[in-house]
């Protein structure tokens, strides 16, 4: 408890301390007096009071008073008398006055005329009889006596009064005067007073020093050693601080960088390709038959401009053509249909990065390990599940004695490094044998999700490229990994992102920091 009190005292602003001391000396002190004595402006006193009140150290009490004074009309009536008085004065002389002449005789304006008649009747000073106003006995009595409203009016001539100070009779007079329009001003005046609560008493009992406190540590204070004589006010650490927005990498890019690092660590050489390529490299070099469903306009983006690509050297093209038509000398029977050069020349937005692998094999000799990360395109409408473009990581390993076992080993290691445990199941791709899909089990979906395809490049793919060793190959999706990692269900988040998501997502990626 006492530790608590010390902490509270420590965090008191100097104004709060000054206010507390003032209250200690004079329980009835007003904010104005505190302001005067401590040379603080009234706003600072009130804000210190508010702050102390919020901490239950004092209570701030409000006393609302109504100050009554005369308007300019009121002052005039005080000087010349209320309209009914002026009429009474005349009646005392004349006993009766015809209604029609009243205004003229008593010097009333039209408005006063009405008021005068009303109040004469109400005060029973006169009565109206056949168009004539006649004084009553009561009226006569009031020649030298005054009603409550007149008395109040007289007093207000010289000073304002607090409504709560009025006697009961004057209060009646106030009510009457206030019924008339525009005679009285009533100013509501709020007075604050302070009351020490228990906590405040404890604090005062414990006591505190008042020393001038500095807020910002300044260059000047450091230079002239002023800091040595200053106390720096402790801040309320819970005060809200403004937000700032960091510069950050995109989550998808972060995962791509992580993937690159894994393959570089595994000794792979990085390669690159263009997103626009010939159907030759995208399909034909991968032994995809020219009438394959995946080549149809429905699934593949063909390009209007440039509509055609050049083909690589003729020898490669003709070897590829032969393999398609009859398998050439690969031991395969091929697709047993004609191969059309013009179909191979069509420009496409690559549907996979696998063309990079065949190009790399065309230009390099095993043993080799190659990977490449790039965008691929499919004719998909943009939905929460699909985008027309996404990323793949492509990889090959070519060497004597490379086997399917090594493909599985490589993929297992890759996914392990990214924190995923995968299973393998048979699949089909036109350019591989021992085709295999990598899958991950998602608890929340209660099903296996495909992550990427792999297999051993077929002899029909390798023979035209002049490759004599087995080649293991894989092409793995990246967006899905990102969606699982960042726990998002809408793939569009990755490309048409919400800036708040980007600003708030931690960059640790589940890495334990130590």
């Amino acid at each position, binding site marked *: 408890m006492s530790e608590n009190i010390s902490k509270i005292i420590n965090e008191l602003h100097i104004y709060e301390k000054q206010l507390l001391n003032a209250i200690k000396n004079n329980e009835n002190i007003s904010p104005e007096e505190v302001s005067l004595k401590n040379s603080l402006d009234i706003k600072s006193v009130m804000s210190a009071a508010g702050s102390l009140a919020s901490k239950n150290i004092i209570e701030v009490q409000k006393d609302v008073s109504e100050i009554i004074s005369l308007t300019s009309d009121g002052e005039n009536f005080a000087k010349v008398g209320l309209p009914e008085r002026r009429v009474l004065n005349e009646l005392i002389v004349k006993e009766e006055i015809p209604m029609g002449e009243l205004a003229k005789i008593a010097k009333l304006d039209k408005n006063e005329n009405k008021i005068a008649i009303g109040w004469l009747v109400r005060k029973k000073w006169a009565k109206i009889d056949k168009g004539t106003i006649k004084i009553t006995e009561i009226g006569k009595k009031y020649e030298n006596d005054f009603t409550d409203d007149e008395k109040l009016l007289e007093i207000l001539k010289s000073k304002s009064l607090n409504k709560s100070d009025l006697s009961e009779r004057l209060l009646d007079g106030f009510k009457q005067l206030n019924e008339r329009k525009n005679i009285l001003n009533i100013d509501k005046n709020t007075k604050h007073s302070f009351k020490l609560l228990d906590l405040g008493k404890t604090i005062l009992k414990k006591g505190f020093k008042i020393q001038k406190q500095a807020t910002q540590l300044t260059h000047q204070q450091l230079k002239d050693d002023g800091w040595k004589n200053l106390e720096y006010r402790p801040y309320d650490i819970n005060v809200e601080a403004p937000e700032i927005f960091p510069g*950050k990498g995109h989550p998808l890019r972060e995962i791509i960088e992580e993937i690159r690092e894994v393959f570089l660590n595994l000794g792979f050489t990085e390669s*690159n390709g263009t997103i626009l390529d010939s159907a030759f490299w995208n399909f034909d070099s991968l032994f995809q038959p020219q009438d394959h469903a995946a080549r149809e306009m429905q699934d593949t983006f063909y390009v209007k401009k440039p509509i055609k690509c050049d083909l690589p050297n003729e020898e490669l093209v003709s070897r590829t053509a032969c393999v398609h038509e009859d*398998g050439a000398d690969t031991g395969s029977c091929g697709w047993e249909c004609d191969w059309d050069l013009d179909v191979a020349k069509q420009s496409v937005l690559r549907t996979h990065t696998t063309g990079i692998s065949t190009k790399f094999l065309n230009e390099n000799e095993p043993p080799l390990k190659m990977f490449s990360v790039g965008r691929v395109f499919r004719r998909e409408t943009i939905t929460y599940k699909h985008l*027309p473009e996404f990323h793949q990581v492509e990889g090959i390993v070519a060497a004597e004695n490379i086997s399917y*076992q*090594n493909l599985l*080993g490589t993929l297992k290691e890759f996914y392990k490094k990214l924190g995923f445990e995968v299973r393998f199941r048979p699949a*089909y791709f036109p350019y591989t044998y021992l085709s295999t899909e990598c899958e991950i089990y998602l608890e929340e979906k209660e099903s296996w999700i495909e992550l990427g395809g792999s297999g051993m490049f077929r002899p029909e793919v390798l023979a035209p490229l002049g490759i004599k060793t087995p080649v293991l190959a894989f092409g793995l999706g990246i967006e899905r990994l990102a969606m699982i990692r960042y726990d998002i269900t809408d793939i569009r988040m990755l490309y048409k992102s919400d800036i708040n998501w980007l600003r708030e997502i931690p960059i640790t990626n589940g890495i334990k920091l130590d």
Partner: protein
Amino acid sequence: MPVITFKYEDLEEFGINIEKEKLIDILPMMGSDIEDYNDEEIKVEFFPNRPDNLSIEGVARSFKGFISQELGIPNYKISKSNEKVIVDKEILKIRPFIAFAKIKNVRFTENKLKQIMDFQENLHWVIGRDRKKVAIGIHNADVVEAPYKYIASSKNENSFISLETDYKMTPEEILKNNEKGAKYSHLLEEFDKYPLILDNNKEVLSMPPIINGELTKLTEDTTTIIVDVTGTDEKAVNQTLNIICSSFGEVGGEIESMDVVYPDKTITSPEFKVQNKIVHVDLTNELIGGTSLSAEDISRLLQKARFDSKIIDDNNIEAIIPPYRIDILHEVDIIENIAIQYCIKKIETKLPNISTIASEHNWFKSEKTIREVMIGLGFQELMSLMLTSEKSHYENMLQKEDEHVEVSKPITIDRTMIRKSLINSLMEFLEDNKHEDFPQKLFEIGDVLYLDDTQETKVKTLKKLAGVICHSNANFTEMKTNVTTILNNLGYSMELSSSDNPSFINGRVANLKGKSNNGEISGFFGEISPEVIRNFTLEYPVIAFEITF
């Protein structure tokens, strides 16, 4: 992708009694992807290389092999009938190949009829390329009479009642007025005669590849059927018939072949031929890796794959491939089947035992460096689609349209071209986030495409870096500060020149050149014009830069 749906109890007819959970474990391992399942039925995708698995009969056949309940090629009843199909000379120019078979002792239930329809549709898609290459008709044989004729009919003759209609139409009317006819009319539009299959009494069995006749429609009472397969690819036509016959064979159907009489030759249909290929024991073990399968092991695994096998010697095995398998092009395909039957779960995984030295591609290495500078300056990285539209890329940016990569069949009007600049995507992002907190500082680094005749692909890829800053006091000086820092930190000295780039406020935009020992870069920066800002419905000043590497 072809998907087949069946009930668990459908498997019982084939003597398969298995719990649902086990089935769900096993099916993927024999080469399929389970799409969905519930307590009664299961939806399974088989891959396009295995159309023989697109019927419940085919699945049962493969499954029984996989669990060693039955081995080798099934022994289907097949005999020769004396019936014939006569092929008209004129049809050879239109849809030149036909295969025909009669199958007796078949039974249909309502469920079976539905399954056979789905099977046909899947085959039409997978082998038939949506009926272009291959189309199938299955008929009640009891209402027609041999010999059959495959003819090119003139458009207005041989009217008949097609499936699900009540009155006769000519072939031409069918193409115009029938729903199926209209859907597939493009397959015949270039011809002035249309294919028809007639019986001896000129009754129409079907009008391939469009529709069958109502006369030969299958019902639950049908016991003998005729299968016709027509198409443009002889091999595919024969394979399709083999697959269908084997499916009926699996449930006791008695297949009867007939002669197809072409003007210049006569062949027996279905051809139903097996294929022989040698598979080597050493190659099998080498390619799979980690196995030491003997000739006997491999022989048995082949039989599980429903091949027959003959051990020739320690290293050579003859695999006999059944007529319904169309996926075996090469010995490696047989090895794949061996691995699947062995079960790939059992294969020990192992990293490749070759040492290579990694090397990072400079294209990506430099991106990493550039990102580091941008992030240090407090820019948030974005990734946007490379597909954009002329409207966003040129019109909204007040740029004149120039040559660019155009997609030939865009999916939507806002994805018609490949970007040459990154700024419009950054502007779109600002637009999407215009109600979020400012300042917003964004950058993207990415590839753009330019047309280039000197390249094999007729395009060249350039790397661009672009950034935008949006807040109420954004101005030229702020962007100049940023751009100067970026160039300095990337090792370039900067030279400025005046620019009249229309995307920016006149007089508040500069062209830049960065020079270093490693070469030159160029770009521009400035205050985006209010018109452009409004085109993206933004309400605060935007400053931007773009650099081409």
